[in-house]
């Protein structure tokens, strides 16, 4: 099945009939299930162990973030975006702040931009580490989880020293930064870079050439680049299918055009390629951080932004490359202090659409592997 348009979703109304067919089994996975990464509910139709089709039921974590935005001022809404993809809160904030800045036609000063890039890339590494740990855990390797969490802690410590929060950081403000980098920030970041490189090698040592890992990931959950584009799938999943699309290069934002880094791509679009792409991405992020921390310019950290923000009437779409894919903000301003409408393009939500396509014809164990490899965060799927 290559044309996603012909996919027929599992019809919930006819489920009862499948009980009459002795070969088919309908299994409800989640929302309380150890491997659905939160509160995703997947209804699986199985023939023995083979997946005939599946349907995702979402909304268990819906908090109406987009609606909340309409009743908050631009500044007040800023902390809310951290709660969408809570493992990559810094990226969410970067996207939102840059979108509002675009609407206000201001630009953050260079020093602020460098610190933003450093924090965002650190967050990308943290997000990928968390992904790796939980993904490996789903496939049955329980040890990498603790290694990645041990090393992710060092990133969270830097966040905590910088802004006091570890997870939902609220690190950025519209127009720049609230806080100047603390004394020893550069030293900490450099120390982290030298600390984490051998650690990434350690993860790879555990998994990359592990026979069982290869068997469990190669050829599992294959999706072609064409299907990815048709479904709107972005991020490492798209790149692993051989499409070289990274917003940091394609439509550079923040300061990314000043840095030298590469976009890793895969060929097969299977779980193993996605794993490799993310592992290389972590190393490339380190490269960016090292360049950025060398070149942090002096200067102000906040642009001139009015105390009461009243952007001109109009609309703006701004997207960034979040760890999970293209994170976009579409903001409509009616000239008041509150946005008229905020629409978020969450990468997790759109990537999750591909689950059915990737899982059909595979086994139950592969569904778990594919959910893990899509790297979804239910806070972002449901918003």
């Amino acid at each position: 099945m290559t044309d996603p348009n012909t996919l027929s979703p599992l019809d919930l109304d006819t489920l009862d009939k499948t009980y009459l067919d002795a070969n088919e089994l309908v299994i409800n996975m989640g929302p309380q299930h150890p491997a659905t990464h939160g509160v995703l509910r997947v209804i699986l139709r199985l023939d023995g162990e083979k997946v005939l089709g599946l349907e995702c039921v979402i909304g268990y974590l819906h908090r109406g973030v987009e609606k909340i935005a309409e009743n908050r001022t631009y500044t007040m809404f800023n902390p809310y975006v951290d709660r969408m993809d809570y493992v990559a809160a810094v990226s969410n904030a970067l996207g939102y702040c840059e979108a509002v800045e675009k609407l206000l036609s201001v630009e953050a000063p260079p020093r602020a931009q460098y610190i933003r890039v450093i924090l965002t890339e650190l967050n990308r590494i943290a997000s990928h580490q968390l992904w790796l740990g939980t993904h490996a855990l789903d496939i049955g390797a329980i040890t990498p989880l603790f290694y990645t969490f041990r090393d992710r802690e060092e990133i969270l410590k830097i966040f905590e020293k910088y802004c006091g929060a570890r997870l939902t950081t609220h690190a950025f403000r519209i127009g720049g930064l609230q806080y100047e980098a603390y004394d020893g920030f550069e030293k900490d970041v450099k120390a982290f870079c030298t600390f984490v490189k051998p650690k990434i090698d350690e993860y790879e040592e555990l998994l990359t050439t592990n026979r069982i890992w290869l068997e469990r990931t190669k050829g599992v959950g294959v999706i072609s680049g064409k299907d990815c584009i048709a479904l709107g799938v972005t991020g490492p999943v798209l790149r692993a299918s051989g499409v070289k699309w990274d917003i940091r290069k394609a439509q550079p934002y923040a300061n990314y055009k000043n840095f030298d880094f590469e976009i890793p791509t895969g060929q097969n679009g299977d779980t193993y390629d996605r794993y490799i792409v993310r592992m290389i991405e972590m190393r490339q992020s380190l490269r960016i951080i090292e360049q950025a921390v060398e070149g942090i310019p002096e200067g102000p950290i906040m642009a001139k932004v009015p105390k009461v923000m009243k952007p001109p009437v109009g609309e703006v779409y701004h997207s960034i490359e979040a760890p999970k894919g293209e994170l976009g903000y579409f903001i409509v301003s009616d000239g008041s202090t509150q946005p008229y409408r905020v629409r978020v393009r969450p990468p997790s939500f759109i990537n999750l659409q591909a689950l059915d396509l990737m899982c059909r014809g595979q086994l139950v164990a592969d569904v778990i592997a594919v959910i893990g490899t899509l790297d979804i965060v239910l806070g972002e799927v449901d918003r």
Partner: protein
Amino acid sequence: MHEFVQYVLSYLGSDKTPGTAGNIFWATVYVLLVFVGLSVAVIAMNWLERKILAHMQVRLGPMRVGPHGLLQPIADALKLLLKEDIIPAGADKVVFWIAPFIVVVAAFTVFVVVPFGPTHAITDMNIGILFMLGVSSLSVLGIVTAGWASNSHYPLIGALRSSAQMVSYEVAMGLAVVSAILMTSLNATNIGTLSMIGIVEAQKEQGVWFLFKFFPLGIIAFAIFAIAMVAETNRAPFDLPEAESELTAGFHTEYSGFRWSLFFLAEYSAMIAVSSIAVTLWIGGWLRPFPNALTGPTWDLAFSLVPGVTFLFLGGMCFYNTARMPKHPLFRIQTIGLAGFGVVLALIGLLMFLPPVRDRIGDIFWFCAKVAGFMYLYIWYRGTFPRYRFDQLMKVGWKVLLPTGLALLILTAVVGMRAELLAQVKEVLR
């Protein structure tokens, strides 16, 4: 009364196991000893697995209940016994009730023939190894009934996976076992044995562990068995029936409290049981290292001191950690507890230096030490490997282990009979 004392005393000094000698009293004592020892081993294994796994995963493991979490298994056992006993509404109550008992009975019964020493077994059957394989494979019945009686999808899939897995790995396991049994027939009479004690004695007689016999055939057979036994006991990386990330808990998803703890008990005693098969068949059972090469009273003395030294070492580790305990009033009881535990271990160690104990404990010690090595391997696997997928598991079982096992069996037979075969060939050529 006098007759009873006579009956009890009549066994002492016998060179047979109580079952073979037909002494009911000592057989019962042995059964109780094995049962208690096994329960203690499972409790210890519970603590050790959590601690060792924790240390592999850069964390501490249980630390709160007792010094270094030593009392954690007891706390857990209490919790499990006090938990509400839930039987799902749609479950088949009788079958649901019986299933854990089938598994436990099967897992414990196999220990009837496990030889802890030349006379330290409950009984010595002439079909010992067959009995072990047969009874241990009965536990699959309990698992299937548990999954079916739960009347729920996850346990059902878990039970089906489990039965398919256990049945298919038993084939490869059996082939590996047969090749070891073939080796026991390499003696003057050309008659092999299926008796567990006989297998160990054959290794002693031939002066080599079957692991190194016909290098590398013995090692390959052992490897097949070592892989199959992990699959047979449903442990990582073959823990699909209870794959937590896929099937929540597999066949025992709906079980809780006491019944769940029975499954737990059965799983760990099954692990110990298959490890004892491996130890008996390939690693020389109760024989100490180099029983034929390093002989003489000096070496005997040196090896008989090992158990005591081991326990003294464990006690010493306790004392070392007692000294490292935080010097805070809150930790006083824990510090005293750890020191007390160390004293107990050290006393056991000293006791093992006494000549009457020293001469009798050696066999049991070496057997348990070898089994403990396998237990460590189980934990190590769990900390290292990802989980196989069901079809890959079947592929490994049927397409790799089974043909290898068959080829190995034939090769072992050919190598074992090479003299006769050569004679035949010469006969034909002439």
